[in-house]
Each structure stands twice: as C-alpha cells, then as structure tokens.
C-alpha cells in the first residue's frame, strides 16, 4: 500500500511537471516582454488561445501536428509583431499602466474575433497518433504526450538560452533589459529590439497554447484562466527573471497537481495560497530584483 501510494505520488509529480511546463512557457514570454519593455501583456492569454486556434485551423486544412509546431509560433509571433508596432509602440513613455490597459482591451477584441470565426463552443483537439498511449517511466505508466510536452518545453528553453547567451542579438537584448538608455546611446535601434522581443514572447505563448490544446481542449476563454495563474508564477519567480519563471512555473504545476491528489477541490486555490506565502516572506519573488517592484 505504501509503495503504491509512493508510485502514485511520483506519477502525480510528473503530471505536475507537465502542467508546470505549460506555465513555464507562458510565463517566460510574459517575463521576457516585461523584463525588456516593462509592459505587462494582459493579452498574453489571448495570444495563447490564438495559438491553439491556429493549430485547430491548420488541422482543419489537412495539416498535421508537426506542421502546427512550426507554423503556430510563426503565425502568432508575426501577429505579435504587428500588435507591438501598431498598438503598443505609441504608448511607450506614457506611464506603465497604459500598455497594460491597452492589451487588456485587445484581449477582449481577440477573444471576440475568435468567437466570431470559430463559434462560442470549443473544439476537441486530438493528441497526435504517434504520441498517444503511455510509457513506463519506472514508477508506472505515464502518458507519452505529457512527456513530449516536458521535452518540447526543455527544447524551447534550451533554444532561448542559446539565443540569449550565445548570439550577439541576445547580448543586445540582455543589455537592453538592464539599461535601454545606454544601449540606445551605443547606437542600437532599441525600438527594433523591443519589437522582436514582443514577437518572440507572443510566439512562445502561441506555442504553449498549442501544446496545451490536447490536454485541455480549445475554447475562446482558455487564455483568461491561465493568465491569472501565470501572474502567480511571475510573482513567485520574480518578475522579469527567466530563471525564476522556469522554477516557479514547475513549482506551481507540481503544487496544483499534488493538492489535487489529496484535496481535489483545493487544487486551484493552493497556488494562490503559495503566492500569499511568497508575498509575505519574500515580496520580490525567488529571483526578483527589489528595484523592479517600484
């Protein structure tokens, strides 16, 4: 009995990591955009939702899941570029609340557009055939697709890390996050860097939406719930910190999953309790810089 429940806990831990992987992808986009642009993207959930719907559309046209994996982030990222250029850029320098308010309005528009195009009811999203079934991971059988989600998240993180740490453009991004003024003085077109960062952040959100689709199904409101939960992740991890987003995302996933095992109705509430504790003990989050708070 004890051994069985230990296995169950281990399996639930893995399920939590898969759930956490989605949070991580969502939150690093949010954190990347905030760290660079100091814009809290309230439409991030809407980009996530659009990612899932672009996937639905590609499958309708006869494409397969592997095409989606490439096409969805590209399409959502391009849309993100347009949004930054047309809507957010005019608001720089006008106070930190305005881009937030604008993206909030944008999320209404995006959700309603999707409702008009695809209807109010959701779509089921089949797990690709090759990723169906379960594999033995030592402690029991675990759905293959969830393993794939964890792996894909790892791949995105690795790619992002290589991009930020090993390329000259990544160097500019890191410098820009620290002091945009100096970077501008050095002759870098900061506006272009911000544009691209917003594009990357939203592309990752779209990718997360696609990965989440077979787990949760696709509905127009899917972005709203995860947005509030991602805020918990960024508060716990520290805003603007990618490492913090990764650690806190996985932690939040595991906490939800573990609480659901023991008290199913408290699964969602537990993460807010976690946030409350972090706010009391360490208001700036795990890796947050105290200065960012003010």
């Amino acid at each position, binding site marked *: 009995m004890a051994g069985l429940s230990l296995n169950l806990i281990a399996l639930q831990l893995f399920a939590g990591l898969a759930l956490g992987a989605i949070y991580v992808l969502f939150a690093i986009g949010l954190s990347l955009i*905030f760290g660079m642009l*100091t814009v*809290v993207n309230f439409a991030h959930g809407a980009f996530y939702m659009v990612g899932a719907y672009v996937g639905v559309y590609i499958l309708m046209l006869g494409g397969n899941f592997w095409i989606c994996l490439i096409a969805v982030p590209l399409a959502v990222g391009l849309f993100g570029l347009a949004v930054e250029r047309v*809507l957010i850029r*005019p*608001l720089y320098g*006008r106070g*930190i*609340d*305005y881009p*937030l*308010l*604008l993206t*909030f*309005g*944008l*999320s*209404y*528009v995006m*959700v*309603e*557009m999707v*409702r*008009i195009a695809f209807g109010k009811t959701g779509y089921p999203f089949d797990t690709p055939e090759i990723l169906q079934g379960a594999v033995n991971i030592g402690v029991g059988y675990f759905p293959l697709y969830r393993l794939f989600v964890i792996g894909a998240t790892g791949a995105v993180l690795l790619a992002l890390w290589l991009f930020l740490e090993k390329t000259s453009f990544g160097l500019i991004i890191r410098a820009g996050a620290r002091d945009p003024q100096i970077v501008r003085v050095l002759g870098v077109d900061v506006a272009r860097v911000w544009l691209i960062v917003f594009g990357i952040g939203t592309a990752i959100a779209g990718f997360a939406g696609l990965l989440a689709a077979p787990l949760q199904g696709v509905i127009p409101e899917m972005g*709203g719930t995860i*947005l*509030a*939960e991602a*805020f*918990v992740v*960024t*508060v716990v991890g520290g*805003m603007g910190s990618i490492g913090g987003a990764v650690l806190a995302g996985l932690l939040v996933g595991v906490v939800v999953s573990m609480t659901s095992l023991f008290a199913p*109705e*408290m699964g*969602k*509430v537990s993460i*807010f*309790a976690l*946030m*409350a504790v972090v*706010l*009391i003990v360490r*208001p700036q989050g795990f890796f947050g810089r105290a200065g960012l*708070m*003010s």
Partner: protein
Amino acid sequence: MNEITQPILRAPAAPESWFQFATRHRAGIASLVVLIFPLVMPFTALAVNILIYGLYALGFNLVFGYLGLLSFGHAALFGTGAYLCGIAIVHFALPWFVAIALGILGGLMMALLIGVLAIRTRGIYFAMVTMALSQCVYYLFYQAVDWTGGENGLRGINVRVIDILGVKLNFINPLTRYYVIAGFVIAAFFVLSRILASPFGAVIEAVRENETRARASGYDVTMTRLITFVLSGGFCGLAGALQALHLSIVPIEILHYETSGTVVMVALLGGMGTFFGPMIGAAAFLMLENLVSLWTVHWQLIVGAVFMICVLFFPAGIWGTLISRGKP
C-alpha cells in the same frame, strides 16, 4: 500642507469659475443629476444599473484615480458585498438594512485581506497580485456551494418591501427601486466628497503624485494605501449589496475577472481621478453596451475596441477631456 491653502496667502478672490463651483458642490451636483436622471432616461432598469455600476466605479476610482494604483481585483470586493448581503437575506432572513450593512462590511474586510497582501508589492505588480487574489476568491465562493449556490448563483433574494421607519416602499416598482438605491448612492457621494476634501484626501493624492516626497514629508505611505484600498472596498461592497437586492440573485460571474475589467474600463472611459467621471463612465459604458447588443451579440468586440481607442487617444476619459478644456 495646510499652510499653503490659508486664505491669507491667496490672491484677492477672483470670480469663481464654473469649474471651481462644480468642484466645491460636487456631491450636491452629482446628487441632483442622479435625482433627475430617471425622468429623462426612458429605461429605468438601465438607469438602476448605471447607478450601481457608477457607485462601483466610484469606489474603484478612489484607488485607481486618486491613489494611482491599478487594481484588477475589484470584482472580489464588489462580489463579496453582493454575496454577504444575499446570504444575510437568504440564509438568515435578516432585514434589508442589516444585509446592506453586512455587504459594506464584507467589502471592507475583503479589501483588508487583499490589501494587506497586495500592498506589499508596488507598481505594476499590484494589478497582477490583485487579479490573482480575486481569482482565488472566485474559486473559494465557487466551492462553497452550501452558502453561495456555487455555479448556479445565490438565488431567492426577494425583497419586495423596503420599510423605512414605518414607511413601506414597494421595491418591485422600478422607479421606487431607483430612488431607494439612489438614496444610498447620494450618501456615498457625500461621504466620498468628504474623504477627498479632508487632509487624508490630500495625503492620498500626495502619495499618487510623488511617493518619495510624501514619505519624506512624514506620511506613512503603506498605511495610506491600505486605508484607501479598504475604504474603496466599503463603497464597492455597498454597490455589490445593492446589486444583489436589485437582481434578487448573485451570479458567480460577479466575481469573475471580467467584472474587475469592466470597472477599469468604466473608470477610464469616464475619466480617472475625477469626481463625476465614474458615473459618466458607467452611463456611457452601459448605454454603449445596450446599444451595441441590440444589433450584435459580439458587443465585447466593440467595447474592447472603443476601450483601446480610449487608451490610445483619450486617456483622460470623457469628463477628464471636458474639464481639461474648461479649466482656466
């Protein structure tokens, strides 16, 4: 701070502009408008909604406009007020005035709980933390089915007669209902106006304008923020309680984050940090919503787009834009 406004230091009294006059008698003027409003407004039900949302926005504006903190969790304050008022009537059969008092108390207490946690963060974090905490409140009320009715909402808040010192008013009659609710809203106008005119009101705005300077002047910035947030919770709790009486049901959506978002839109549309803005915003927002939903179910598209245009081009809102022209 008070020394500056001593009469001795003032220039010889210039004739009062309409703007100064309106500011001085803001609560009275707002009350007058509220009293006349249903006579020019053909749909009394819509007028009642405007009153309640105006009051909700009035409370929100205290934090957003005057204190300068953007809260995305005011649905929790509004919703707690509504639920407590409803629970008092449905489960305990308490008289209506006790229920309303409990609604206000609920708003205050919830604001204290959320405030204590959220005030620990500043700037942009505040919006995120308040939104996350109000989402937590949503889940808690959703789970407490025995008390709140969960997904189905709290039903059966039937108040037919409002009994004021022996005078029985028929609450079913739309116009009577409007004026009963208007009574509370007018009281709120005067309380809010008093708060804003007090030295504490000046400190609230000082904190918004320059936190460091306010702190250097010896004011407790954190406490000012917390008290203001709690006061805002009182107004929003009252609005929620009135909403519960008006709808005779508390839907769970009242705690949804869209209810928080709506009040942000209302306050910005009307003009943040102005006394008349929230009411004007509520009227504009609800009329627009009613108008648009006549010809399309996708009113959120139009409302979202109008809000974006407002953020981009008219951040001062309707009333804010008007007074910036009228100010000398």
